[in-house]
């Protein structure tokens, strides 16, 4: 079976800094994989690289990104654009800034549908209303006529989720979609993502630093540290029997009700440079991460 997403030895540099240093992961069809790591681990960069959203000063120095076996980096621009937004979709991090402030919700969803699917204006609006119903928005027709500033943050995130699943994607990259939301809204959003991915049979790459979220919805997970994959496997295994000291540190740093959280000391960038430049041994990192 061809993996939905294959990232193989991906290296990304911003100027002299290497933000991804040969990261590899696979997402199988229908799989929900969590991609975790502390800030600066490169998890968002990896998601952005797949979507072609790397900042302009970042370059992919080596590695391969394949979607359903097709090399995304080698394919023609027009072909890639045909996949993005349709077969590969994004749920962005910040619902407050991710919708165009001067366009009505209906126009934004409708344009996306018409861009990828051959729909008439009326059919696109009807489908947009359907999508809003699927993300549990009441009175969808009324909401379609509203501007983003007229609806709440949680509702905007639901609109963005509806847009992600609008064209029946095979892969949805969720880039910390719950970070900007409060806890009750977070849960609703997670339930929605779960419901929609089941309905559309999409695989999800869930980028987050929240291990609680991973434990809830991801069957498998990948732990990223300083631009490389430290550990990966079934979520239950990784969380209960972390093989790696850094994963243990990450777990210990998760706030819980029954004990105070331990501080996760971030690795200083200079030290990372030094570690990676020399012969790379996992144990070196483990010491730093667990310190």
């Amino acid at each position, binding site marked *: 079976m061809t993996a939905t997403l294959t990232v193989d030895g991906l290296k990304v540099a911003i100027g002299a800094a290497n933000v991804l240093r040969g990261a590899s992961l696979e997402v199988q069809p229908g799989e929900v994989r969590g991609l975790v790591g502390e800030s600066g681990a490169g998890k968002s960069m990896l998601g952005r690289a797949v*979507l*072609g*959203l790397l900042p*302009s000063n970042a370059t992919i120095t080596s590695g391969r990104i394949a979607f359903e076996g097709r090399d995304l980096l080698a394919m023609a621009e027009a072909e*890639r*654009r*045909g*996949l*993005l*937004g*349709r077969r590969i*979709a*994004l749920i*962005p991090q*910040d619902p407050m*800034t*991710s*919708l*165009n*402030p*001067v*366009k009505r919700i209906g126009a934004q969803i409708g*344009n*996306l549908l018409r*861009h*990828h699917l051959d729909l008439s204006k009326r059919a696109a609006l009807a489908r947009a209303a359907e999508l809003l119903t699927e993300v549990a928005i009441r009175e969808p027709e009324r909401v379609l006529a509203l*501007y983003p*500033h*007229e609806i709440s943050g949680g509702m905007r995130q639901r609109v963005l989720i509806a*847009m992600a699943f609008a064209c029946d994607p095979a892969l949805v990259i969720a880039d910390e979609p719950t970070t900007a939301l409060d806890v009750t809204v977070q849960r609703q959003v997670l339930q929605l993502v779960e419901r929609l991915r089941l309905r559309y049979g999409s695989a999800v790459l869930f980028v987050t630093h929240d291990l609680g979220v991973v434990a809830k919805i991801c069957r498998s997970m990948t732990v990223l540290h300083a631009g490389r994959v430290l550990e990966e496997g079934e979520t239950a295994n990784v969380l209960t029997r972390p093989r790696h000291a850094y994963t243990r540190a990450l777990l210990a740093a998760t706030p819980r009700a029954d004990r105070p959280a331990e501080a996760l000391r971030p690795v200083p960038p200079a030290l990372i440079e030094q570690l990676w430049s020399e012969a790379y041994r996992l144990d070196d990192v483990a010491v730093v991460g667990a310190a």
Partner: protein
Amino acid sequence: MRWGELIRRFVLIPPTLFGVAVIVFVLLRVVPGDPIAMMIPPGASEADIGRLRALYGLDQPILQQFATWLGQVASGDFGRSISVRQNVLELLLARLPATIELALLATMIAVLFGVFAALIGILLRGRRAEWIVDGGIGMLLAIPDFLWALILLLLFGVLIPLLPISGRIDPEIDLSLRSNFYLIESVLTGRFDIAFALLHHMILPALALALPFAALVARLLKASLAEAEDQDYAQIARARGYSRPDILLHEVFPNALIPTVALGGVQVTLLLGGTVLVERIFSYEGIGNMAIDAVINRDFPLIQGLVLTFAVLFIALNLVVDLVVTMLDPRLRHG
């Protein structure tokens, strides 16, 4: 802008104009130089001068002069020009359309050039050629309109005599138009020969006014486009499979337009101010040209009328700009 705000703005217009009237009225009479001194022949007797003063009411205390003038203005009488000896209101109404047409044409040219340059600039963003656009914009911006007037006059009027260098239209052309909006009326009534002759005369002064303003529009719009393109919604559009020109035009441009109109629209007042010198240079018969004569002759009634006219234009312009911005930005519409 909501209705309340709109009403508030209209209510504020009379006090604003009153303030302008007070300032210009007092300033004219405090600053040295008066119209009588410009009129009298050398060696006129004190008695004659006194009689002239009394004739124009200049012998009265300033407060009383102001009250008299304000009463007249309120009933639509701006008095008689001292130097031209004609009704001020009639003079203004005859000349104002020429200036409005010139300013409109200049604004249209500026917006056209400015938007074009901004779009080219943003498409070249991050490339070396972007500097050519930025440099060109900077150069256009650095040269003021009256200097452009002289440069254009020298280039296309004298060195390569392609275009007429003075006046609004050739005197031999029979206009027989009903209004003083020659260009607008001739276009609307389909008399394109006249429109063409008018444009022939207007193109150089309009360009002189338009070039620095075009640069301003270009710079504002390009900066706004760049800022909007970096926003999340524009970045995310890329991940939805839209091409960059598509995103710039449909996602970024409507957003960038808001600050550009808000900041640039108000700058049309600068362009209006520029008509004073540019109309003079091209002997164009608008109110700007008339203003210079009025000041030279210390023609108090005419100056007062002109300043009030400019004030009304500025207020109207600001109001229009705010209305347009409200139309463009849904966040302002609902408050």
